[in-house]
């Protein structure tokens, strides 16, 4: 069973310090005919769940209609949100709760000051209002923290907060760093990432809530677990493009479009999925060759970093020779 991560919109009602600038520059929402195409063909392609991301998915002008169509076609749905609109969205979730798989709220600090420094004043309390609504309405929710130098000391506190607030769990993910995040001092060095991963693994054994780690953490094997590479997960951007990875699709640079594999404006979902399968095959062949040639460096064991480089989206590091991830450039 696969799921599709659908970037419903590139628009957002926040302007977070770690987000790609073009996330805020665009004004586009996923066209409904593209969604209909996904829903029409999805089951035949093994898709059973749609996960909405963005931008902020709930600001899509037709969010309620989208949920209605998704559920009407027999798919489960979930979404990632900053929580700002949740009071408005909650009745919709309750109406379609049979198909609802859970909501993930971005919470980038256990402390109000930390989260608000990253996401804007007042946003922490809005997330906690959303969590309160979920708790009292018996809606499953999870917190997600993007790990940065600013919130790294609050990893254990976030897990404790999730437990106190009745969350299903907490998930940690490494920052997809850019020149902007480097300039803002948000990036963790490779050693700092390794250290925080050790702490998270300890939490996985001790916390009373589920503690997850998004792909991107250090992996001994070059053939790390990653849902898109295992064809368990497909990614659709708001323009209607099937892409190799949801994280990379908004990352700019001279090779910004290299992970775009097929447009649903021009082809069927099954055709686009075939292209993803072929591209993953090429990707894995390339990697096997590099490993066999000894061309797989220590930092390449951080999966997302490997892919960013592989897709030519880390060239800006050449201009930042003192950046802690520049050593392999």
């Amino acid at each position, binding site marked *: 069973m696969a799921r599709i991560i659908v970037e419903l919109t590139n628009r957002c009602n926040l302007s977070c310090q770690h987000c790609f600038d073009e996330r805020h520059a665009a004004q586009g929402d996923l066209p409904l005919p593209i969604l209909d195409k996904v829903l029409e063909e999805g089951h035949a392609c093994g898709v059973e769940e749609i996960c909405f991301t963005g931008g902020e998915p709930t600001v899509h002008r037709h969010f309620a209609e989208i949920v209605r169509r998704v559920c009407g076609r027999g798919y489960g749905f979930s979404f990632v949100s900053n929580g700002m609109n949740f009071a408005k969205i909650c009745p919709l979730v309750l109406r379609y709760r049979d198909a609802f798989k859970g909501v993930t709220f971005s919470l980038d600090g256990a402390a109000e000051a930390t989260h608000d420094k990253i996401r804007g004043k007042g946003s922490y309390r809005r997330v*906690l209002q959303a969590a309160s*609504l979920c708790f009292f309405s018996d809606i499953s929710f999870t917190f997600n923290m993007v790990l940065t130098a600013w919130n790294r000391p609050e990893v254990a506190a976030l897990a404790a907060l999730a437990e106190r607030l009745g969350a299903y769990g907490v998930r940690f993910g490494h920052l997809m760093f850019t020149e902007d995040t480097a300039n803002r001092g948000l990036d963790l060095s490779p050693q700092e990432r390794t250290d925080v991963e050790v702490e998270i693994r300890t939490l996985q054994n001790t916390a009373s809530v589920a503690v997850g780690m998004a792909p991107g953490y250090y992996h001994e094997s070059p053939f790390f677990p990653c849902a898109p590479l295992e064809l368990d997960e497909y990614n659709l951007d708001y323009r209607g493009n099937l892409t190799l990875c949801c994280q990379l699709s908004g990352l700019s640079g001279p090779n910004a479009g290299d992970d775009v594999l097929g447009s649903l404006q021009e082809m069927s979902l099954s055709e686009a999925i075939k292209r993803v399968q072929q591209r993953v095959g090429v990707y894995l062949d390339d990697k096997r060759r590099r490993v066999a040639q000894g061309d797989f460096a220590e930092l390449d064991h951080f999966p997302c970093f490997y892919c960013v480089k592989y897709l030519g989206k880390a060239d800006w590091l050449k201009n930042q020779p003192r950046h802690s991830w520049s050593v392999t450039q």
Partner: protein
Amino acid sequence: MITLDQKVRVHPDVVDTRISDDEIALLQLESKNYFSLNTTAVRIWESLKEGMSLRDACRRLQDEFDVATEQAESSVIELVDELARQGLVEVD
């Protein structure tokens, strides 16, 4: 015990959330404890948020729920006392 002449205001470390027309959830940020307010308590809480005195909050209860003065005062004082013990309001 709190008296009706004391000034009471919502504690700054509280996040309140409307759950339904007759239920509000309170989250105390320091203790991380949730609390739920029922219909009457919701009206008292709203009065406090509007900056009303406890006496005015009592009058509102009397008007809206058709209760005797003693009962309204008792409800307000008991709730505010509990809210204060849980760090949900500040009392001068």
